[in-house]
């Protein structure tokens, strides 16, 4: 990944910056210029809490080249308490455990690497809350 493209997304990837529409209160992650629900352009910058629950999920067995070493890996759509939905890998989780409704916490992890010489790309992965203790 070219580093400018990675760098540009740092606020949402590192700090879970999202937007709350000042007109209709819709929370969207990442922050965008235009509210997808009402079209308003005034958005308040918020940070998502690092908690959420799984809406739907899968375990990818055949991944893209960049993720060959990680497969099989869980990945899910997660809804945060603020109402934002985001996609993230699910780590430290047994495949049978990864089901709708699973309570998760978002941990900072390496997401991908550009080979042995390129930049390392960070972001968040979900971990079952049960893994915390």
């Amino acid at each position: 990944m070219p580093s400018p493209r990675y760098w540009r997304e740092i606020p949402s990837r590192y700090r879970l910056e999202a937007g709350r529409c000042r007109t209709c209160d819709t929370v969207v992650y990442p922050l965008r210029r235009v509210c997808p629900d009402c079209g308003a352009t005034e958005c308040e910058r918020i940070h998502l809490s690092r908690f959420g629950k799984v809406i739907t999920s899968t375990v990818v067995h055949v991944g893209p080249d960049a993720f060959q070493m990680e497969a099989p890996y869980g990945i899910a759509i997660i809804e945060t308490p603020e109402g934002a939905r985001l996609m993230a890998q699910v780590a430290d989780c047994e495949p049978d455990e990864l089901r709708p409704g699973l309570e998760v916490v978002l941990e900072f992890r390496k997401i991908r690497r550009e080979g042995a010489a390129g930049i390392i790309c960070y972001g968040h992965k979900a971990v079952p809350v049960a893994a915390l203790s």
Partner: protein
Amino acid sequence: MTGIVGYGAFIPRNRIKSEEIARQWGKDPAVIKRGLLLEEKSVPGLDEDTITISVAAGRSALDRAGIDPTRIGALYIGSESHPYAVKPSGTVVAEALGIGPEVHIADFEFACKAGTEAMFVAFGLVESGRVEYAMGIGADTSQGAPNDALEFSASAGGAAFLFGQRHVLAEVLETYSYTSDTPDFWRREGEFYPRHGGRFTGEPAYFRHVLSATRGILDKSGMKPADFRFAVFHMPNGKFPLAAGAKLGFTREQLDVGWVVSTMGNTYSGSSPTGLAAILDVAEPDDAILITSFGSGAASDSFVLRATELLPERRGRAATVRSMLDGRRRYLTYGEYAKVREKIIVNA
């Protein structure tokens, strides 16, 4: 009063048992467990490194401190496994923690002492009034060559300490460092695994520096071993810190809480700092605490701390070291371990 206003640790959830490593190389696991006092060690996942461990530990430190991260004026990360040879770990960690941009950042390296080095500088800047808050982190995904004695100990984890002058959880009463040029353990630029001097790492290196630094700080602070409720010494294996403690006159009871090495392994720059975090997880107000690190090359940093009234109520805001050591773990086979530690050559 200057001291720790927030602290946190993180230990990855993968483990490998000493038996599993011993079996791989045809060694007798009983000898390892008895000789090095190592049961198992933490192993970083493919998605974990010094930066991710530092962020996790740093977040817990911020949760316990409850301060606005933009008030942090300095952030130092000590590690000998910074993911980049050139490009700081600290910038990633700062951005993730919401620290900066008005912040001084540096990555430290001093073998296993880099963590306390970061703490030492962070503390000094706060005490001098140069910055309001400063964070020092020690974290590593330690390297150890396959079929080397280090392979039984080299593990992953780290701890973060936020220093400040208000709402202190543990006051820093004294610091002391003892340093000499001693080539007991090293890794040359571009080399994948460190080398070490075998038994030379013991008496002239570990013991000389740990004992000298500890004696120095006891002398400087006018305290004696019996004055402390807890002490932690750098843990390259299970045996060395217990032997150092005994030579200095500390009892096993004083050492037990911080002696996390038998199930965590040696997290290098994170070793004694994580032991300190484990102590802060249980210490009571007014308990005196001693920490002495050791970094090959070689030096030891010592700190004397005293827990405050605030510590017990703040520690519940984040996970304890014990909960991470005893909580969810996934045991790896040696093959899985070799894969996640990227010891297998694949077509990438």
